[in-house]
């Protein structure tokens, strides 16, 4: 089955206001799709709908050629979603946090790959410090380490650059491009300006508008 996430005629209403209407999206392997728009334009909502978390929308979603409802399990096995909240436990160390995610993904326990992921995300020396004692940027990095730990083709990232320093942003951007070049695809919202490259495509959500152009 090929990697392809499609949305047809997608619409979402919040508080009597259309966040977006008639949105058609076709996300394929090898693409980075950046969802743009001002605050409150529905970027997070769109990402949650596309990652199968919100059922409160109109229109159709397809994974591969199958409707999302039938392909949910296959879809979730391909998805890595990082939301606003990093999803790391403050009382657990980065290693323990990653161990849980590794087990949830159905991977065997493997401490060396966790250590490698933490090392390459820049958390050497913090493996056994409770995550709550780390800085906001470092906590975000613990969550981002999952990108390296769990090989999943579809990345859905909601503001992944929050609290990350300049070098970290550059590395992460590099990782997104590499992931797309290796045949994965990335769906991302960010206020940070991504360096233009062949893989990058933009989807703009206007405030209350129905603009679904590229």
């Amino acid at each position, binding site marked *: 089955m090929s*990697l392809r996430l499609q949305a047809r005629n997608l619409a979402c209403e919040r508080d009597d206001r259309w966040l977006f209407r008639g949105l058609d999206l076709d996300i394929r392997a*090898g693409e980075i799709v950046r969802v743009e728009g001002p605050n409150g334009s529905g970027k997070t909502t769109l990402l949650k709908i596309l990652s199968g978390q919100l059922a409160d929308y109109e229109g159709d979603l397809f994974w591969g050629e199958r409707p999302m409802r039938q392909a949910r399990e296959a879809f979730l*096995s*391909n*998805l890595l979603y990082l939301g606003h909240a*990093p999803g790391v436990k403050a009382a657990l160390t980065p290693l323990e946090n990653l161990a849980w995610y590794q*087990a949830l993904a*159905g991977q*065997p326990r493997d401490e060396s790959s966790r250590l490698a992921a933490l090392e390459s995300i820049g958390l050497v020396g913090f493996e056994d410090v409770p995550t709550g004692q780390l800085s906001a940027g470092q906590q975000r990095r613990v969550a981002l380490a999952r990108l390296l730990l769990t090989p999943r083709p579809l990345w859905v990232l909601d503001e992944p650059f929050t609290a990350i320093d300049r070098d970290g942003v550059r590395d992460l951007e590099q990782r997104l491009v590499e992931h797309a070049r290796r045949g*994965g695809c990335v769906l991302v919202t960010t206020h940070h300006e991504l360096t233009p490259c062949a893989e990058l495509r933009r989807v703009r959500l206007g405030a209350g508008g129905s603009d679904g152009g590229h």
Partner: protein
Amino acid sequence: MAVTERMTTEAADVDTPSVEPQGGLGVAFGATVKRDLVLLLRRRSEVMNPLVFFAIVITLFPIGISPDPELLATIAPGLLWVAALLAALLSLDSLFRADYDDGSLEQLLLTPQPLALLSLAKVAVHWLLTGLPLALMAPVLGIMLALPAGSYAVLALSLALGSASLSLIGAIGAALTVGLSRGGVLLSLLVLPLYIPVLIFGAGAVQAAILGDGVTAHLAILGALLAVALIFAPWAIAASLRISING
């Protein structure tokens, strides 16, 4: 020729990265149990609060009503059960709250593993660190209420069985109210009526033990309630969590 070959392999690379669903449910279940155990053991106060509450409430009764052992012995089974039930309820609100706040709950919902079984893992940890300690502590507090000898084992056993049902039923309410900022009171209103059958047969078992009647019938019904809760509650918890996250 070489160029076309390279292009086809590249195209194949691009077209086939899709991952098939993997197994490993046991691994995920075990890891969730381990994670929650570690988390709760690092925040001991949350484990201790229901136990301290239980002890204090039971201490209040002889002070407030009368130290008369005969009177206390009559009402002891009901008192112990109601106090244990409220203590278990006290800790329920935090069952999914922390996960909801830090985003791990949405990650839990996005795993390809069945959510019902993963939430069962969380409930199991809740029982292990709340229901079971309450059951083990109850006989000690029973001495304070002049509970007749011979009913201690039944008290602990009935509480151990019953509190497992309480954790399962309560988790449905906790899952439904996790998205609300002050869900605690609503949780009690939702869950307490559902606790009544467990309370009746739990306190009934202890009463029967005091009177010297057979306790097996009561314990069997408690076991049956637990079996029914084990079958249905995980699915209800999973559905409630989805509703809460969607809302």
